């Protein structure tokens, strides 16, 4: 299931030999999450993850019910901007912005205020409620932090959008200053399981990421911490990652799927199978029933025509328009999809 499969050849789906057992497993999860309102245990999630492919639709249906019961039908729409692109000293093996790989992405300096504001206005014009300013850095230096603390209130005042920031590893003081500047949500992805992290990043440790996530919470910003699936991690490691996220309790979890980037060490991997992606969206919703689960990068290449299915498998937020260095599908397509699904666009706040 975890080995990426060439997308050209259809993969036969696996059938359950024990349909009654599968139904019982799903019924127990449904009772816990919908009737008792209790989160599932790690072992329960592991059992659900082992269900054969023909159980993905009932699994997704349950995840959708859980999303509706815990978070309602609204979908939070966000625009993102790479305000400082490329030239990053870190070596995240999936990333086209690392200076360590021979990537086509050329480093560009911090965009000026007018350009950031214009991008925020584009975002507001699409009906989004959140705008995230993203920088390709290990962490913010003094100048970067000063720029951010000016920009965030400016964007907020000009557009009325909630402003999120993603600027790498933070110190306690960085986190305090960003919180004071009015950063609504801070993004810092775990990306992958602790046990797999060393195969993907060697320039910083998983623990540093987790520590920044803790600082974000401590300074009362909302925590956005996402994942990147399809880098060669095993199913057990995906479950491990889910469990580690459950410990951190992020308000938002963006789900990225690997879109292999030329020049990076992961350039030759295949995107994961669409059906497998739906299974893991559902499992992440079942493991994180109250979170904002956002469609992020790689959904177009991974899910293709199944993008609407992810919206009924637990997703309740999306990044609209383009990503950091790659393009998204047209915003009209996403907005029409939400209309057809009868999911209103609206801000989602942290669960108290």
């Amino acid at each position: 299931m975890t080995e990426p499969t060439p997308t050209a050849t259809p993969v036969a789906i696996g059938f359950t030999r024990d349909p009654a057992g599968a139904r019982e497993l799903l019924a127990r999860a449904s009772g816990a999450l919908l009737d008792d309102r209790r989160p599932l245990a790690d072992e329960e999630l592991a059992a659900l993850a082992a269900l054969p492919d023909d159980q993905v639709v009932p699994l997704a249906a349950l995840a959708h019910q859980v999303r509706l019961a815990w978070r309602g039908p609204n979908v939070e729409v966000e625009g993102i901007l790479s305000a400082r692109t490329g030239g990053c000293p870190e070596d995240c093996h999936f990333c086209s912005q690392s200076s360590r790989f021979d990537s086509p992405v050329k480093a560009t300096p911090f965009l000026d205020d007018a350009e950031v504001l214009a991008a925020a206005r584009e975002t507001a014009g699409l009906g989004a409620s959140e705008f995230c300013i993203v920088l390709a850095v290990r962490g913010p230096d003094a100048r970067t932090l000063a720029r951010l603390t000016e920009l965030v209130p400016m964007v907020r005042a000009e557009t009325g959008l909630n402003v999120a920031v993603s600027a790498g590893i933070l110190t306690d003081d960085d986190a305090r200053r960003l919180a004071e500047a009015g950063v609504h949500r801070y993004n810092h992805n775990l990306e992958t399981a602790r046990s797999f992290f060393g195969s993907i990043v060697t320039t910083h440790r998983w623990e540093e990421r987790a520590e920044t996530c803790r600082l974000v919470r401590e300074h009362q910003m909302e925590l956005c911490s996402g994942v990147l699936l399809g880098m060669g991690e095993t199913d057990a490691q995906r479950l491990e990652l889910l469990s580690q996220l459950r410990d951190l309790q992020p308000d938002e979890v963006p789900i990225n799927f690997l879109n292999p980037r030329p020049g990076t060490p992961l350039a030759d991997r295949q995107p994961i199978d669409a059906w497998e992606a739906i299974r893991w969206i559902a499992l992440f919703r079942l493991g994180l029933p109250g979170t904002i689960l956002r469609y992020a990068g790689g959904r177009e290449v991974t899910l293709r025509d199944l993008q609407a299915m992810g919206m009924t498998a637990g997703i309740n937020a999306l990044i609209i328009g383009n990503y950091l260095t790659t393009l998204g599908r047209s915003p009209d397509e996403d907005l029409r999809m939400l209309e057809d699904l009868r999911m209103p666009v609206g801000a989602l706040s942290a669960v108290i």
Partner: protein
Amino acid sequence: MTAVAFCTGCGRPRERCAGCGRSLDPPRFCPTCGRRMAVVVTPLSWRARCLEHGTLGGDGEPEGRPRAHAGVEVSPDTPGELD
């Protein structure tokens, strides 16, 4: 129209590119000289600038959407935007 001599996906001379066909990537290399361009991607558009040959794409312009490997027009340079 300027001749598209280089692949905007990989920067190789057009005839030596085996096919970069990525529809969801902005152009990364100048179609005229094959240099890496400074690319700004915003939620609704992208803009790519060659030090020599100016800027492709642009704000809100529908051509600023996926067309990375189509024939591209080069507009006069806008100075002082990027490094």
